[in-house]
């Protein structure tokens, strides 16, 4: 126990600082990505012709190796948090756009027709029916993106953006396994923690009656 205490006393502040930077990179990138991707996904459900090409184009970003993407941002934005956040943001878009789009498109057609037949406008149908009913699918996309971001944010270590990646990169450089663990373990913990928080968010945002209905469906299966 005293060994652990000593370790935390010595290394704790450094790890905490890196963890703080890591959270900063991830949270800012995710906030920007959600802010763009959810509305974009919703707009695509109203302009369906554009959906396939737009989603495909965003998918192309995903095929670019993350290391290359982060590297390419440096000449554009300079080394530092900006380059790293931009790369994370681009990476986080696809799961959210895709899930928002498929979530809304997946709402039962009978439900939409009932809403239309009662005289709801297209935007009333979107905000009163489609959006509340696709919360679980949209949140699943956000959770996927968050976990991807926490992982890729470790590349911040090589573009002078800080974060837990810094410890890992130094560890690799010096062949020091302990340093790699110092970066990797908190990153894993962070991914699990954020995923857990988002799961709570999902519960909070999913309308109660819909949760009950989904529960019933699961039990029926």
């Amino acid at each position, binding site marked *: 126990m005293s060994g652990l205490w000593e370790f935390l006393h010595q290394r704790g502040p450094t790890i905490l600082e890196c963890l703080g930077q890591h959270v900063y990179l991830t949270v800012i990138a995710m906030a920007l990505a959600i802010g763009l991707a959810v509305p974009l996904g919703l707009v695509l459900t109203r302009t369906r012709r554009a959906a396939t090409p737009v989603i495909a184009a965003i998918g192309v970003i995903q095929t670019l190796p993350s290391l290359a993407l982060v590297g390419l941002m440096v000449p554009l934005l300079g080394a530092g948090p900006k380059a790293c956040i931009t790369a994370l943001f681009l990476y986080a878009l696809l799961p959210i756009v895709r899930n928002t789009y498929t979530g809304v498109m997946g709402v039962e057609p*009978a*439900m939409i*027709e*009932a*809403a*239309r*037949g*009662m*005289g*709801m*406008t297209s935007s*009333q149908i979107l905000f009163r*029916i489609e959006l*509340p*009913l696709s919360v679980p699918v949209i949140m699943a996309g956000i959770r996927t993106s968050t976990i991807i971001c926490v992982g890729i944010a470790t590349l911040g270590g090589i573009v002078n953006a800080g974060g837990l990646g810094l410890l890992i990169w130094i560890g690799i450089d010096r062949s020091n396994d302990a340093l790699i663990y110092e970066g990797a373990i908190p990153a894993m913990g962070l991914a699990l923690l954020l995923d857990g928080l988002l799961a709570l968010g999902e519960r909070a945002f999913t*309308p*109660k*009656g*819909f949760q*009950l*209905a989904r*529960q*019933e469906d699961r039990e029926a299966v």
Partner: protein
Amino acid sequence: MITFDHLSKTYPGGVEAVCDLSLEMIEGETLVLLGTSGSGKTTTMKMVNRLIDPTSGRILIDDSDVMEIDPIELRRKIGYAIQHIGLFPHMTVADNVAVVPKLLAWPRARIGERVDELLGMVGLQPDDFRDRYPSQLSGGQKQRVGVARALAADPPIVLMDEPFGALDPITREQLQNEFVELESEIQKTIIFVTHDVFEAVKMADRIALLDAGRLQQLATPAELVESPANEFVDQFLGQHRFQLSLLTTTLGSLADQLDIASGQPVKTGRRLHARSSLIDALDEFKKSRRRELPVYRRGQFMGNLRKESLLTLIARSLGEAGEPS
């Protein structure tokens, strides 16, 4: 009030769903669009509230072409109850019923009152059901909420697309009976779509029988059953002719053939009416276990009907409608 004027709908790809349909509805009637799947009955109904636009022809409501009315405005004035219920799972019963009143921006208090009134009307205790979610209701209860929702803003016209289709036979019959009763109180013009000929006969003032988008016959249930307009109608009724005629034939229409003993009404708690169908009469005899029951027309005693005379009459009609003679 609602007029279909040479209405046609051809879907892209050339499928003729509805072909040159003309008919005029009577205010306050329940018109059943009856037909098999692909007959065009649902397409016809959905053109009324512009969920589908016609290829040619017109639908007039009170002399105005629906194509010239803003679809959103139009739909808010027409009640709509659909197949598979279509209740919104994330809204409470009260919120589901209140959808159209909310769209019409009714004051809150009025919406609350109206919701309670409607729930009472469809046989659901408001205090018990208001705050439940659809997943906490049985199939029959959901369907009742669906009916209440369609009536919420008190629309003069109501469209119902197989609203009782997803129910078990017992609940279904119960809801049909209740709806017939409710319908006679609320006096709406109703277009009711079904593929079930028994349901049609039960609900309809008039039945429009469709096949492949074409109107085959427009008639009251009794006329349809007694005098089919063509071979298709005859075949459609098919083996159900006998049962259907028991449903559509009323004691009143057979008064001259019935051996109704006059004199004093037999003393019993039960009575038959001139408008009772032969099935109703059989049912009453079975329930009451009497050999004779009094028949009334608008409260006036007509005579006593003996069970044997009823059975003889039914046996006689068998030769005409039931078996291949």
